C-alpha cells in the first residue's frame, strides 16, 4: 500500500531519483575511468614498486588527500568557477556532477590503491619473471587478483556518492536528498521526508547487497 503523500508527489520523486541516478552514475564512470588509473599509478609509483618515484608519488598523494579532506559542501562552492569553465554554468544537475566526479575520482583512487596493495608481491614478481609488459602486469595480474577488493571499494564509494549527492541542492543539482530537504524539511512535511529516507535506505541496501554478492562471487582466494 503506497502512502497517499508518495502518490501525490510521485512525479517529483521519480524526477528526483532520476537526477540522483544521473549525478551518481556520472561519478561512477569518473571513478572507474579516472580514479582507477590514478589509484593504479599511485600503487605503481610507491617506493619499492616497479615504477617507484618518491616525488611523483608524494605529489599525487597530497592532491588525492587534499581533495578527500575538503568538507564536501565547501568543495562544491570552491569549484564553482571551475564548474562554470567546463560546463558553462554552475547551476543544475550537469554542473553538480563536476564536484561530485572530482571527489569520486579521489575517493576511488585511494580505495583502488589499497586494494592493489593487498595483491601478494610474489604475483608481481612472477609476472615480471614471465616477461609481462606493464600493461600485462596491470590487466592480466594486478586487476585479476585485486578484482574483489576493487568491487568492494567501488560499492563503498557508490554509497558515499549517494550521500554526497544529497547536498547538491545548494547548486540546484536536485536529486532525492534535495527533494527531501525542500519538501520534507522546509515545507514541514516530515512524513514525506521519512518516506524519502526509507527510499534512500532501500537504495543503499540494494547497492551494498549487489556489490557484496559480486565481490564474493569473483573472489576465488
Amino acid at each position: 500500500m503506497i502512502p497517499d503523500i508518495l502518490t501525490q508527489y510521485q512525479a517529483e520523486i521519480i524526477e528526483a531519483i532520476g537526477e540522483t541516478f544521473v549525478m551518481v552514475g556520472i561519478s561512477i564512470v569518473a571513478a572507474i575511468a579516472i580514479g582507477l588509473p590514478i589509484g593504479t599509478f599511485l600503487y605503481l609509483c610507491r617506493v619499492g614498486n616497479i615504477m617507484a618515484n618518491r616525488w611523483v608519488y608524494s605529489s599525487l598523494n597530497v592532491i588525492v588527500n587534499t581533495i578527500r579532506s575538503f568538507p564536501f559542501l565547501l568543495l562544491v562552492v570552491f569549484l564553482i568557477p571551475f564548474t562554470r569553465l567546463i560546463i558553462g554554468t554552475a547551476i543544475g544537475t550537469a554542473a553538480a556532477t563536476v564536484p561530485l566526479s572530482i571527489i569520486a575520482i579521489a575517493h576511488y583512487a585511494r580505495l583502488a590503491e589499497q586494494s592493489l596493495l593487498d595483491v601478494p608481491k610474489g604475483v608481481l614478481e612472477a609476472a615480471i619473471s614471465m616477461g609481462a609488459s606493464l600493461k600485462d602486469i596491470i590487466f592480466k595480474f594486478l586487476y585479476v587478483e585485486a578484482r574483489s577488493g576493487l568491487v568492494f571499494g567501488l560499492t563503498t564509494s557508490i554509497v558515499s556518492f549517494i550521500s554526497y549527492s544529497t547536498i547538491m541542492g545548494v547548486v540546484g543539482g536536485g536529486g532525492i536528498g534535495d527533494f527531501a530537504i525542500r519538501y520534507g524539511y522546509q515545507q514541514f512535511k516530515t512524513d514525506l521526508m521519512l518516506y524519502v529516507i526509507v527510499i534512500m535506505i532501500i537504495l543503499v541496501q540494494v547497492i551494498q547487497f549487489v556489490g557484496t554478492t559480486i565481490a564474493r562471487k569473483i573472489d576465488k582466494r
Partner: protein
Amino acid sequence: MIKLRNISKSYAQHQVIKSVDLSIGKGEIYGIIGESGAGKSTLLRIMNVLERPDQGEVEVNGQLLTALTGAELRRARQSIGMIFQQFNLLANKTVLDNVMIPLQLVKAPRQAQRARAMECLDFVGLAHAANKYPAQLSGGQKQRVAIARALANEPQVLLCDEPTSALDAGTTSEILAVLDNVNKTLGVTVVIVSHELEVIRSICNALAVMADGEIYDTLTITPKGITQLDKSPQSLVDKLTKEGS
C-alpha cells in the same frame, strides 16, 4: 648455458653479492646452497635480471641479458622459466588459466594456448585439476602447477627459488621427481636454490656453496660422493662433505 661474470649487488650499504663468477652447463641440474642471507636467492634472481646487478654480466642461452633493453629483456625472460617458494599462482584464475598466462603473454593462438597448457599439466600429473582454483589444491599440487606454468613456453632454463621450502618431506620428494623429469625428459637446465642439504644432494649433479655473498666452492656430485672440494671449507661445506662421503 648460464654465465655470470664478476657480479656484484648491494642494497643500500650492504653488499649481498661480491664479485661472483659462475658457469652452469647446458642440461645440468645445478644447486646453489647456503645459509639464510648468504645471497643465493639474489644470485638466482640476477640470472633472469629480476634483480639488476650493480656490476658484471649475465649471459643466458648466449644472450647477454645485462645488455638488453626493456622490451628485449622481457622477450628473453619469456624463455626462462621460474618457480618460487610461495608458488605465486594467481588465486583468481583456474589452474588451466594460470598455465595459459605465459602463452597469452607471447600471444600464442587461443586454441594452441589451451592445448599446450593441458600438455604441461599432463606432464606434471595435474590434467584432472585443470578447472580447479589454486585454493582447492595442496602445497605440492600448487608447486606442480607453477612448474607447468614455467614450462608453458618451452624454456631452456628453469630457475627454482627454494621450491620445496614450504613443503613437507613427502611432497618435497614428489616435486624433486618432477624437476628431475623436467631435466631428463625435456633437457631443461635446472638451477635450484635451497638451504636444505638433502634437496641439493638428492637431485643436483653440481653445486655452488654460498656464504656472505660469495661462492665458497663449486662441487660436483657423483654416486660415489662429492668431489672437487679444494677451498677452505666453512661449517656448511664440512657438513655436506661429511654426509656425502
